[in-house]
């Protein structure tokens, strides 16, 4: 059984994945900007950003009432809303949709929370298969250094405190991120991720991403939305 539905285009779906502090958000922002400048119609969608579930998520987090299953399901609700209202129609309209995190985040994170692996993979079967999925590979300590150095307060669920891994929030975060990292690493081949070495400079990571996008998509001549016959297009920038 395939994990996702095929994207019948004409738009293209690019997603970035990786643990917190891997630098993926910086990279997808740069890539979106670059694609826009090249004339593509670009849309952006971020994990856990649907206004429809915002209040419910806030309530659940504030009162710490989430179980692994309800936590997984509220994120799937958020994702479904973005998929139905935003991502799918824009892809049909020929946009390039860039997503900061995708179903793979749930596959990694929810499994670490104890949710059944096959169940959560089945849950997201309504999702469209990305045309490109970048994985930002980074050693745990590097990512932790970026996060723990730069921000003051870790949040309860973000640090995996609900798992009771440690009473120290920073220690809990370390263990939690380490386990998520292991889930991601195990998915690389299965999901066909394009692996980006996230220890390299921001510039060289971006260069590598752009190279892959050009190779996979070709280039577009006319500004605006993508045509139906993208694969056949041999166009020049």
């Amino acid at each position, binding site marked *: 059984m395939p994990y996702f539905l095929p994207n019948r285009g004409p738009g293209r779906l690019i997603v970035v994945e990786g643990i917190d502090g891997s630098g993926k958000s910086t990279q997808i922002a740069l890539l979106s900007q670059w694609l826009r400048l090249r004339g593509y119609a670009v849309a952006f969608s971020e994990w856990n950003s649907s206004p429809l579930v915002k209040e*419910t998520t806030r309530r659940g987090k504030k009162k710490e009432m989430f*179980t692994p299953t309800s936590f997984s399901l509220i994120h799937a609700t958020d994702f479904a809303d973005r998929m139905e209202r935003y991502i799918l129609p824009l892809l049909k309209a020929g946009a390039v949709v860039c997503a900061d995190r995708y179903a793979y985040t749930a596959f990694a994170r929810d499994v670490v929370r104890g949710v*059944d692996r096959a*169940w959560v993979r089945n849950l997201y*079967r309504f999702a469209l298969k990305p045309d490109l999925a970048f994985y930002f590979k980074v050693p745990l300590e590097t990512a932790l250094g970026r996060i723990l150095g730069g921000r003051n307060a870790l949040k309860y669920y973000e640090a995996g405190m609900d798992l009771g891994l440690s009473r120290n929030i920073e220690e809990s975060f370390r263990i939690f991120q380490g386990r998520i990292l292991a889930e991601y690493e195990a998915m690389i081949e299965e999901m066909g991720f394009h692996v980006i070495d996230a220890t390299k400079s921001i510039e060289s990571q971006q260069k590598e991403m752009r190279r892959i996008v050009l190779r996979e998509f070709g280039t577009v001549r006319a500004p605006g939305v993508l045509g139906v016959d993208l694969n056949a297009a041999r166009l020049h920038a």
Partner: protein
Amino acid sequence: MPDYKARPPLSYYRTALPGVDYSELQGKLIVIEGPDAVGRSTQIRGLKPWLEELGHAVLDTGMARSALAGKGIKEAKQGNTLGPVTMTMYYLTDFADRLENEIIPALRAGVVVLTDRYIYSVMARAIARGENRSWMEQTAGFALVPHATFYLRAEVQHLVSRVVVGRGAFDYWESGLDNGFGRNMYDSFVRYQSRLIRVFDSLAEPYGFETIDATRPPVEVFESLKTSVSRIFDAPDKPRIVPPRKSPQRSHPAPTLRTGSSRRE
């Protein structure tokens, strides 16, 4: 008619919930299912005091009533942009919250849980809107297998008259207008509810529903339900069943048709 005594202890359909010890669940899980306006909540209002009079502690729960997602679902339904998959996911979130934070703790404490709708309604609504059945069955597979599911069944014309008499107007979602089943609310209601009934019918056998003819007067439906519910409890513990009294002051009134609009999901 299912043999309730042959049912194994409570377990899940397909996927275990993390952190739940199923052998601890001592109570009974009783589900009342059926399409919109078939009279489920009327029956539950009668069953709860009846069970309590027999000495059972009863938790009465129902769809979209969770502390977590109940309000969010209500708000989402005020708009017109709730897609079918999103709706299904939201209802499952609500269900998971009630299952883990209300139903399971109650069962652990030996309480009888009486639920107005269950995953079957979530599944039926999704399937009636064209979602894949096996996807739904796997997704909802963390639900507990109830001790009994009573499927209140009626044809769509019966539902129509209940809506018109009882509520005076058709509801946007009950009419499936989000999916454009018809050109007006009546046509859409009839088409959507007919489809829902067919889906419920198709779930009846695989999920062991006991079908109750809900076209009869509510008092008769109530009598059938009481007879069937009694069989769920083991014979030695079986409390004396109080015959329904005719006095209007009875402590556990037989349900009557409601005309108010205070209905819940």
